[in-house]
């Protein structure tokens, strides 16, 4: 395993502009950023890499955000890394679904950049103490 202590974020969104925006914000805040264009790809990547944070869009082709988060929390990925869900939906039920799926925070798009960075920083503060479970 890598001993790199830079928190590694996976940005999951089908919109290239949003991915770009998040990448800019997060990499300037000294995060390592990877991207996935849908839930399926995110899950596949998460199987290979222990990310420290996920930023997941809701509405995506192939596998949407809820299903993606559900899959990240379930076997075989089973990650306990923080997950921020980002969506254009702003209904109570949408947030409910996000939390039921296992997201740690539900934000509404377009996400205030500074806030996202603050949250990402706060949530990854414990990342280095991560222990690899066999």
């Amino acid at each position: 395993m890598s001993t790199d202590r830079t928190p590694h974020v996976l940005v999951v969104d089908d919109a290239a502009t949003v991915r770009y925006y998040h990448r800019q914000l997060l990499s300037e805040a000294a995060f390592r950023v990877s991207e996935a264009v849908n839930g399926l790809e995110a899950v596949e990547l998460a199987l290979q890499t222990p990310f420290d944070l996920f930023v997941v869009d809701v509405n995506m082709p192939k596998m949407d955000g809820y299903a993606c988060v559900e899959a990240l929390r379930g076997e075989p990925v089973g990650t306990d890394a923080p997950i921020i869900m980002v969506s254009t939906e702003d209904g109570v039920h949408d947030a409910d679904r996000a939390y039921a799926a296992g997201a740690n925070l539900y934000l509404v798009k377009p996400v205030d950049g500074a806030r996202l960075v603050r949250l990402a920083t706060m949530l990854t503060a414990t990342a280095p103490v991560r222990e690899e479970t066999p």
Partner: protein
Amino acid sequence: MNPLLAQFLAEADDLLSQVDEGLLRLEREPHDADLVNEVFRAAHTIKGSSGLFDFPELTRLTHAAEDLLDAVRGGRLELDATMTDDLLAAFDLMRGWLAHVTTTERLPSSANADGAVLIGRLRAPLGGQDSPAPAGHGPQAAPAPAATAPQWVGALGEEWLETTASWLEATSASLRFVRYTPEEDCYFRGEDPLHLLRQVPAAERFVPVTPAAWPQAAEYDEYACLLSFVLATRAATGELEYLFRYVPEQVEIADLGATALTRLLAGEAAAVAEAGIRLGDAEQAQDARALLEAALHVLSALPQEAAARAARVSSVERAVQSVARALGRDVEFPAHDAESVEAAARALLAALETAVVAEEAVPAPAEETVRSLAPAGPAEETAPAALHPADGAADGGKVGSRTLKVEQEKVDRLMELVGELNVAKNALTFLAASAEEEFGNRILGRRIKDQYAGMHRIAEELQAAVMDVRMLPLSVAFARFPRLVRDLGRKLGKSVELVTDGEDTMADKDVIEALGDPLVHLVRNSLDHGVEAPRVRVEAGKEATATIRLTAVSDGDAVVIEVADDGAGVDPERVKRKAYEKGLITEEQLETLPEAEAVNLLFLPGFSTAETVSDVSGRGVGMDAVKASVERLGGTVTMRSERGAGTVVRLRLPLSMAVTQVMVFSVAGQRFGVPVDAVVETVRVPAGEIGRVLRQEVIQLRGEVVPVVDLAGTLRMPWSPAGATRDVLVMWVGGQKVGLLVERFHREVDVILKPMEGLLADHPAFSGTALLGDGLVLLVLNMKEVLGVAAHAA
């Protein structure tokens, strides 16, 4: 342009093409749920991303389109032709806006009005909710501008504020106001306030604020920044926060509308608390609270399944721990179970409450939410319809697929280099000859030749590879036609189906690009003049719906494209009569010209058979223009037509324009080239057989009289042919045979023609230059022009 905007423009452009294509397909397959979903998703993505910028009109318009598509998707509406028209018009308008944004970085001033019209049309089928106001939809609309203005906004000047307030009132818009107070020692920390301020997009006004009292001269430190700045901009809050992300604590941003400004002007503002947004510790408290509340939320909805449950609890524990650290507290989780995590979260929340109460200045949470939400008000899909594999599969795969978008210039540059490599390679044959002849070393000569053979093979492969990169499928040229045929057909009241075939056929990008206009012209002609009105067709015993067929096939080094219709066909008698009336043919020809050849009269300059000039194919640019542009590409056009059955126009074009095969010859010691395509034959005739008709030199070639042009004379080069025979290069130029008097023939070479530059650039007699293997520059002749010059000189 900032890269985020550039990214958005590129993505939106792609998406708009998808939408267009999807909508047209939907008209044919209106019940294709995946297709509806795909179009909806594209609109949705544009809307979502547009919210990152201050393009409220764009967001509103995409939103209206999205709502309509959502209703179609949900089965609440049936997509009809009018809706499709409106949707296409809306996306066209967006495309226009984005083009405007590309050059000016803002929407055109007409955007609001134009957008409102289309929004009205798009919303009409949704049940008369045609208010263009963004407030009507969704639980959260655009962020409400703050009700009161902070005092510092006053720095912008009363007069300006008054004008602005009335302008904002009229447009119901708002502006973002920024106060930026750099720290005194900012220069020493590598900050550049002026530079930062210059980057503020769409600034309306900017005022530096001097300190209330300047320090005494003795204490004055010229390296300290004592100024602060107030500005107003149309840029979105998010954009500004991004810009000032390194100095958030030095910046205040307020989103203010007419009301707030008016109040400020009326002096009410002083009484009310500051409504601007402060970036700093207060927000950390907000974030912490949001995370803790979310943690409780997750814990209240834990699943039964053990593994999934454990991952959730553990993640919440981590989140709560993070929050605790950020707040400078320690938390213990004795049991690492849901209960202890929940207890910790509640304890932290309580601690936060007390801390926040102590700080009254913290903006109300409600305001914070509103602000972070922003203009996207979505009725996005809530059902797991997104799980449809759909055509979104292609979309999802796109990023992952190994396709590279490369700038054209780079490919052109590669091609140039291949050309240069060819030249350098060809030099080896000269070197080999020189080794043998000048130095008498045949072994070395042979080795060089072997080396040449190896290089030649590689160079050829390289050239083929680069040419392959330049190849594009014909679908690029065909892409616009479904739309064009549909729109024109509707406009002309004709029912037409477009069938395309062979879109996968590849051709050089230059060919594809140059093919666009001629094809549009041909298809328009077919629609306008070829295809009959449905009633006429039915009377003639045809199907009411006409077919226009666009096909492409490759044929050796050429690509053949046909535009065929099953319309009325060309009336040869009418064409001949028209040509006669226009003085294009003689009375004799009118009588004798075979019907099959009559269609070729259409290619004569200035011919148009339509009785009336329509705004579709118009007047002036006729088939002659098509012919001219195709010939410029080195291609040919032919037309077949059968009365009552239809017309076929066939274009034959070289697959690639990059490499031209050139026949090299010399005159007066100077080498010239002509494209091999134009060469008919080379002949050697006795000098005495060159005769004269009027003032033109001619030769008899198997009974045919062929005019002969003295190139040296035409180009005023001193040369008079010697010897008993004359070499003549016979060519096809503009439909007739012409001979060129030549001193000596050389070989044929493949060259990459470069356009003329510098002094000779305007000289029409040359179509370009090419570098030969021995380093000499070859001038390639444009024979049509040479003949023109010769005719002048005669």
